[in-house]
């Protein structure tokens, strides 16, 4: 095994994923903090499988090898919740049994000294920053598509990930909203200085992300 690099960001070292003897994915890549790497490919090309491997949900039916390095440390053997990898899905997936505020609080790490009131204040500030002030007690089901997408992004960012994976996060949105949300998401990620892996089949997503593009399959 190679010695871990000292640079930050997300790196894939010889990641090879196969199913019943066929290799689906064979990738080497490095994503610097604040950068977006776009992986494109037809559906079925294994894009989601790659995300599952990085995030820690790979179905045991797959065989997988290779290292996932986050800020220099190998994370591919850690349980999903300990990897520091955030994931944004095609659907916002706001928990339907929690309020909007509850959704945001769900992912906020419990830091020493940061009591309930501090966390609550952070949640309110986050809502305010995204134009969702006063939404903390709202039922997620009553939000518009754009509001849900923004809430999902806030929830992700408040969970303090050290890398972000995006699984076609804009494809379910109306065309009119898509540009706004893209700008918001990429802006937030860049501002936070997080390495980001975007999986999409939409060339506009790739263009908007503005980083390296890899074609799969």
């Amino acid at each position, binding site marked *: 095994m190679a010695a871990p690099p000292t640079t930050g960001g997300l790196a894939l070292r010889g990641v090879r994923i196969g199913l019943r003897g066929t290799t689906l994915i064979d990738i080497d890549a490095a994503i610097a903090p604040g950068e977006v790497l776009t992986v494109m490919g037809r559906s079925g090309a294994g894009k989601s499988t790659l995300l599952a491997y990085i995030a820690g949900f790979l179905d045991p039916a797959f065989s997988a090898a290779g290292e996932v390095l986050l800020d220099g440390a190998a994370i591919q053997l850690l349980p*999903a919740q300990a990897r520091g990898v955030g994931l944004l899905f095609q659907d916002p997936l706001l928990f339907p*049994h929690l309020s909007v505020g509850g959704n945001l609080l769900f992912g906020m790490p419990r830091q020493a000294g940061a009591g309930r009131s501090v966390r609550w204040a952070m949640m309110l500030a986050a809502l305010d920053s995204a134009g969702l002030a006063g939404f903390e007690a709202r039922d997620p089901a009553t939000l518009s598509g754009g509001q849900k997408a923004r809430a999902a992004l806030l929830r992700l960012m408040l969970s303090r990930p050290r890398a972000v994976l995006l699984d076609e996060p804009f494809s379910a949105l109306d065309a009119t909203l898509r540009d706004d949300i893209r700008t918001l998401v990429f802006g937030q990620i860049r501002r936070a200085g997080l390495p980001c892996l975007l999986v999409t089949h939409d060339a506009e997503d790739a263009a908007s992300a503005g980083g390296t593009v890899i074609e799969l399959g």
Partner: protein
Amino acid sequence: MLRLAPIVAVAVLAGPVLAGLAGVLLPAFGYLPALGGEGLSLLAWRQLVAQPGLAQSVAVSLASGLLVPLVALGIVFLFLAGGSGTRLFALIRGAMSPLLAVPHAAAAFGLAFLIAPSGLLARLASPWLTGWLRPPDLLIVQDPAGLAMMLGLVVKEVPFLLLMSLAALPQLRPQARLALAGSLGYRPVAAWFKTVAPGLYPLVRLPVFAAIAYASSVVDVALILGPSNPPTLSVAVLRWFNDPDLSYRFVASAGAVLQIGVTMAALALWWGGELLLAALGRAWLEGGGRGRIDHALAWCGQGAMLLAGSALLFGLVGLAVNSVAGFWRFPHLLPEHFTARHWLAAAPNLAGPLGTALLIAGLATVLSLAVVLAVLENETRGARRPGQAALWLLYLPLIVPQVAFLSGLAIGTGMLSLRPGFWLVVAGHVVFVLPYVFLSLSEPYRRLDPRWVMAARTLGAGPDRAFWTVRLPMLSTPCLTAAAVGMAVSIGQYLATQVLGAGRVATVTTEAVALASGGNRRVIGVWALAQAVLPALGFGVALLAPRLVWRQRRGMRSLG
């Protein structure tokens, strides 16, 4: 720990199940030393085959096992397809769940009193329309073909399958599917059958299988509404078991094995039908028909559902009137006078048995729910599932005739020197409650979008926190439904309570069944209503609690 859940479940249940099975199989082949059966022989089988009317008994049981689930499922699907969103739909949906609480025997008594020649319907039309001053000599109830029994079973299975379907529907997002099909020009019923039904059926398949097993082997409903000469196979087995001539126990055991075969045959035939329908259905799906008789189908579904619900409801009303009736003779629609004496006589004996039944049902249901949740959570978490393959064992108690199964269980517990009593009854109830909880919950559990838990995990929640804070609350409705079904199953247990409690654990059901053997319709009315109270409470909680708790969460109750 969790990893061991299936092993624990199988280990806990395999003992009783295997003891029960041995108690059927060994005597069927001549081995039961207590009654002088020391060696293996086929004598019991030869005697069984020689029983008059056996072929007809088998035929009626098999027909019931296939027709009842078919008709009940047809009604439920047509209703869901045609009624979504209408006021009638909401009304019926609200009323059906409590009706599920009506115990089978009570429903059968109610229906018998509704449709018999001396029953409520005949009284309603007599003598002004029919001219009948005495009940006509018409063969309606207990007809040799078992049609009245099947009707009673359909009426009882419809609410069960409806509840199972309603619990599974939300995760299919039927609205989105229907909107899509509608935009392609499909009328609502056709759209539902082409886009929602193919997704829904796999989710309710296990409950349908349970309905098949039940309809082909039911005893109490068959005793009340079913044919008597010859009876269904299940009733014939019971009669042989209860024959004073103890040598009939061997024939009865062989009959019980045959009953298992009949139930398996019904399941196999249904499975063959599924394959056939899948092949034919694909052509129909791709045929592109938009639904020409859509409106008529929608009305059929709602009409049949309304009829099934009314039959249950008016049967109950009949029982209620009986429970306060003085002298009441045909053709009077109402009793000549009313009296509280039947209730007053029962009152001192009600509280204790009700409390015992509730305690046993609560314990058995909580235990079953815990085991089922552990097994399912283990299954969703990991690749290796030790013991998972043996889980089919859990369903055996549903297809082995109870009277045979329990005699084996009684011998088994006796050999282990387990004292019959309260805790043995609770354990025995778990054997029968667990399969129902499992089949009610497993599909909704497995079909919950795995991304919910993934989302929780990437937000930093460990598997346990994801289970407690995301999966469990999101599945609270199916969990409560499964618990209510489990409670109802437990409260309905007669033989299990009697055999494992040595008759010393008195529940509302043991009292009700013992008194029902006296045939006094007034007393039956009182006890049937008393017996329905606890399951009704359970279903009421299952229905209302989620609405109350999630009243601010539209996403948690997007039903139908």
